[in-house]
Each structure stands twice: as structure tokens, then as C-alpha cells.
């Protein structure tokens, strides 16, 4: 339990070129990238913190802030856009009372956007954790959220 970062580093054989994968595994473990773990990572792999943070802030997949229990991903791909995904996103913002990128006060949801999830034919698509919701419309938002 205590040294999860070491276990992750070990899995990749301390290979610097695998840093993105290592960060992804740390995020999968904690739901975000905790500062103390990144400190540990920097020391154990002998990589400057600047390099770790440059990756952690460059890639959209990483979050330096704690995220909610459920991650909502709204697809903003072109196919979803032409079918009105922006309106779905606004509806989610209204109902959750947060803006995109934020986490609800009770830490139940984090509202994120993604550029394409690879199921464009079914757009607009929203994904909550591992569950996909296709052909979304405004009236489907509330019943969907109630499941969580």
C-alpha cells in the first residue's frame, strides 16, 4: 500500500522513456498526480522535477488536482459537435453546478472534456467512468447522472 510508486517504477525498469506510462499508472492508482508521489518519482528515477512537471502539465490526460469519484468525459469531437455536444456539456455544467474541468463539492463528479473517443457514429457521446452513453440529448442528462 505504502510504496505504490516504487512498484510502478519497477514495472518499467526505471526506463526514462516510459515516463508518460509511469505517470499514467500513478494517476490510475490515485485518480490524480499527487505532489508527494511525484517528488518520490523524481528521486527514485533521478529525473529533475522540472521534466516530470513539464510532462504532467503538457498532456491533457494528467491532473495535478484531486478528481471526483466518477469522471465524466464529454466528447467534443467534430462528429459530436455537429450533433450539438456543446449543449449537452452546458446542461451538465448547469446540473452539476460546476464548469468544465472542475470537481463537484461533494467530490462525486469531475467534468472533463475529450477530443474524440472513437465512437463518433453514436455522437453526441458522454462517458462516465467506463460506461458509454450514446446519442445524448438534454433530457437524458438528468437520468444518466442519477445512476451515480
Amino acid at each position, binding site marked *: 500500500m505504502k510504496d505504490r510508486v516504487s512498484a510502478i517504477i519497477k514495472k518499467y525498469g526505471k526506463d526514462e522513456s516510459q515516463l508518460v506510462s509511469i505517470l499514467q499508472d500513478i494517476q490510475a492508482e490515485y485518480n490524480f498526480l499527487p505532489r508527494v508521489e511525484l517528488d518520490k518519482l523524481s528521486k527514485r528515477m533521478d529525473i529533475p522535477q522540472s521534466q516530470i512537471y513539464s510532462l504532467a502539465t503538457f498532456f491533457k490526460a494528467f491532473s495535478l488536482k484531486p478528481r471526483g469519484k466518477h469522471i465524466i468525459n464529454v466528447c467534443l469531437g467534430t462528429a459530436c*459537435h455537429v450533433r450539438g455536444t456543446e449543449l449537452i456539456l452546458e446542461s451538465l455544467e448547469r446540473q452539476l453546478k460546476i464548469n468544465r474541468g472542475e470537481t463537484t463539492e461533494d467530490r462525486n463528479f469531475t467534468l472533463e472534456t475529450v*477530443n474524440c473517443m472513437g465512437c463518433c457514429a453514436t455522437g453526441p457521446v458522454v462517458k462516465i467512468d467506463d460506461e458509454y452513453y450514446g446519442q445524448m440529448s438534454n433530457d437524458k442528462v438528468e437520468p444518466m447522472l442519477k445512476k451515480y
Partner: protein
Amino acid sequence: MRTKLKSRKELEELQKKLHRKLDTGKTRISICNGTACRPYGSNPVAESFKSEIAKQGLEDKVDFKVTGCHGFCEKGPIAIIEPGNIFYQKIKVDDVPEIIQKSVLNKEVISKLLFKEQSTGKEITAQNELPFYKNQTRIILGNNLLIDPTEIEDYIATGGYAALAKALFELQPDKLIGIVKQSGLRGRGGAGFSTGTKWESCRKAHGDIKYVIVNADEGDPGAYANEGLLTGNPHSVLEGLIIGAYAIGAHQGFIYVRNEYPLALKNMTIAMEQAEKHGLLGDNILGSGFDFHVRINRGGGAFVCGESTALMASLEGKVGEPRAKYIHTVERGLWDRPSNLNNVETWANIPLIVNNGPEWFSKIGSPGNSGTKIFSLTGKVNNTGLVEVPMGIKLRDIIFSIGGGIRGNKKFKAVQTGGPSGGCLPEKLLDSPVDFDELTKAGSMMGSGGMIVMDEDNCMVDIARYFLTFLEEESCGKCVPCREGIKRMRQVLNDITEGKGRESDIELLGEISVHLKESSLCQLGSSAPNPVLTTIQYFRSEYESHIKNKKCPAGVCKALIQFSIIDEKCPGCGMCVKTCPSNAITFMGKKKPVILDQSKCIKCRTCYDICRMGAVSIE
């Protein structure tokens, strides 16, 4: 556990054995469980098939397969039943016992699950007679139906890895490169460079250590052709990669997959493990003496990493920023060593070319553009899905014959190809052939295969603004023209959509575009103006209407539209009152029209979408 195949002969024997298993006369049900069928509930349907087959004790009589993408995503969950090539669409869990009872045991066709032709209502039973499929040439995607992507033996049964064996034991690397060159295969990632020539340069480049890379960072929003291939038939990509490595002289490969494609990651990882166990990957492949290892890397959600040099930087564990390509990556790429990067679809074409010969391949498609191309046909078209067509086909044939035309009897407005680097093409160009050169001539590009159809309800200024917003966020910021230029263009477009546009704005957009095209470091910046330039070129009147009349003809741009109730059409049912999130609509009693308070209206469109009487208008 299987012992490794140690020779070509052992592979061929296994192939024969597995192939015989395909023809046992059993009923075969193959259900699509691709990423696009999942939002429609394909997972529970597949589970229900499994339990129903077990419940009825039919395991020996039915060959049940959960496969990757079949292509016709619009109608998911879908299944094919053989013999008979029966195509069932929109299957629900409750339909499963009936399918087993009627179609498996009694060989009857269930009418309610068949595809019905839109115009005539005629039912079509066989998959290969559906307009969606019969107008396609599915040389790459066709086998998805026969393959459980997590079972290497399914791939081997369809002739998989025979091309690898042929390459290793019959063809010298130079000969192999010659075949690929002769086939005329051009890179499917978008640029359309000759694959054989690229391989040749990499083979000839100086250096002992060389790399081959699969670019599976399909970042174009609205394109998922690579996703369908990676999840549905990962071994075809892997086989192509190993053949390429042999031709080029590389012993290490990388597969860079988008993090947003969890299923692709999973299936590719399984494929690699299984190939290794079978002696088709790793040391001494099939006893040939050729060693090759592959590593899979996940992207981090950055669009720019689809650019080859940015992708390689990311593979090195660095920030994914591109570099100027004075020296090509085939000479100095990953860790400054010769590196050959190709798109997923390019790699998947290789086994086909090796098996069937370059002449066969070059006969498909049009001169200079041989082979097929997979498009993800999406947007406002009736039949959305993954389509594979010969190059040179007309846009009209894809959208109207395969795609079945525009949804809800609306009017076609534009088709967008090439993602954020491409453009929007109008109706007058629908008869243009779809290939690398013609699309570029029209101001768009092939890209990695997104094809998004738009109708009269889509605003072209909004679309241009959308792409520029996307690119502004995805610009890595390394070079100034891209970082600043895109931002300014997006601001101008924002102003236009908010009714604050000035008459000189169109000219200004053109001017910034020139600078972006000429001075950006990579393609992200230099092609960024395309969505703007094509929409100005083909839909200038829409821009003018926003700027001069402060009107959005398509009714999209919020600042320029107003919702109102058409009293004569409103039956006072109150549906809109219940769903309005801002309480802007007041119920006035049954059979009396509702009243909409403009000051409270947030223009969310909920009332417009929910009203079945068409009593809400947008002006």
C-alpha cells in the same frame, strides 16, 4: 499453453487445422462489440447470447464470436448469422432467446430485426446486399467479422501471418521493398507519401539500430478508422509491422496508441502477448533467425503527438513538441536513429500486398492512388459507421449510396474531411473523386479518414470557430506563428459568431492564414487555416450574413438567434415547460399556447428538440 511455432511448416499446419475448424457446418453468430456498439448496449447483448447458448446446451452446435467493429455503427448492436449471411440490427437483450430459438434452431429469419430500406421500407436479409455494405470494398475490415480480436488463432485461421512467413522465407528485404513500392501504397496517415520509398530511405540510412513505429495516435476529432482496425484486427497491424521491420532491418518497434482508446490498448497488448507465445514475435521468429520486439506506449491526450517528430519526442519520455524536419526521421528520428513511422492503416495493408501481390493491389483504386481507404462516416448522414472504399470513389457515392443520404430529410450542406487540417467541401464538389491529390486540390485533405457530413442546421462559421478553438488548445506553443496566429484567428471568428464582426475580418483571416501556412514549424500550424479558408471560399455568404446582417442563417450562433413559440402550432401540452432548465416557459392551461420569457431563455435548445409539433422556432 501453446509451444512456439518453430518453422513456416508448423505455421502452415496450424493454419490448415484451424481453417478446417471454420467449415464444420455449425451455425456461426458473430456479434459486434466494437467501441461504437457499446453505447448501444452490445456488451449485455453478447453476455446474454453466451448464457442463452449455455442454457440451451448449444455450445457444440453454435460457434459464437464476439468481434470488433463490423462497420455499420448506426444500427448497433449488430450481429451476423451464418449460414445465410443474416444481418440483425439494434438487437436488445430480450431479442436473444428468440434469435436462438428461431434463427439458430429453426432456421427462420426474424423480420423485426432486419434492415429496412429508408425509401421503400423493403426488408433486406443478407448483410452483403445492404446498400451500406454492397458498395464498399472491405479488403482490410472484412475479416473483422470472423475474428475474435483476443484470439490469435482466429486470425491465423483466416490466413494470418502467412504473409510474414512468405516475407521471411521467400523475399529478400530489397525485393520486399520493391513490392511495396510497386503496389503504389501511399501513407494512410494523411500526407500520402509513398510507403515503399520511405522504407527504402530508412533501410539505406546509416546506422546499426533502426526503429519501426506504428502511429496509432489517431487524434483527428471525428475519425475512428484506426480505432476500428486496432480493436477489431490488431494482428493485421502487427503482422504488417513485423514485415516492415524485416524489410528495413529494424529489431525494435513501438506502437503509440491514444490513451482515449482503452479497448485498442487492451486488444493490441493481448495480440502482442499471443504473437510472442506463438513464436511470431520476439527472438528467432518462425525459426528464421530474425529477431523483433515491440513495445506499446500510451499517448497523453495531445493532438500534436500525431505529428511524427512530436510522437518520437514523446516516445523518448519528453514533452511532445515537434522539431523542424530538415533531416528526415527516416535518417534521424527516435534517439537520432533511423526511424520509420507509418499509420495503423498503412501497416495493415502490408500483409495483403505481400499475400496477393502488388499488381492485385494497384488494380484497386485509381491511378496513383491504389488500394482502399477507411473513412469514419459520421455527422448528419443516415448510415453512420466505418466504411472502406476504393480510392477515387466520388464523395457523392460515399454519402448518398453508402451513407443513405442526409438524416431527417434535411438538405446537405458540406462534408468535412481531413480533421482540423482539412476543409469543408460544398455540394458542387460532391462528384470529385476521393483521393490524396483531388482533396488537396479542393482545399481540403485526406487526413486519417474522418468524413463528417453537415446539413442545413450546421453553421459554417461555427464549424471554423470550432476547429480553431480545438487547434488553439492543442498547439504546443513552440513556434510563434502557430501559437499566436491561431489564437488571433479564433478571436476574430468568435467576434463574428457573437455579432461583433467587422467587414474587414474576412480579409484579416486570409492575411493571418498566409503567415501561418508559410512560417509554422509543423503541419498543425501550417494546415490550421484550411477549415477557415475553405468555409470562406465555399460559404462566404454565411460569413457576410453574420457580419453585415448580424444573423446566423443556420440558427446556431447563440448571440444571433432567438427562440419563440409559434402560437398556432402549440397545443399547450407542457412538455417544454417541464424540461426547460431555466423556467423560461409558462404553462397557460391545456390547448392554450405556452409563453416564452426571452429574458430568462438561455438558448439551450431543449424545447426545440423536445417539441413534436414544431411549435418552437429559431430566428
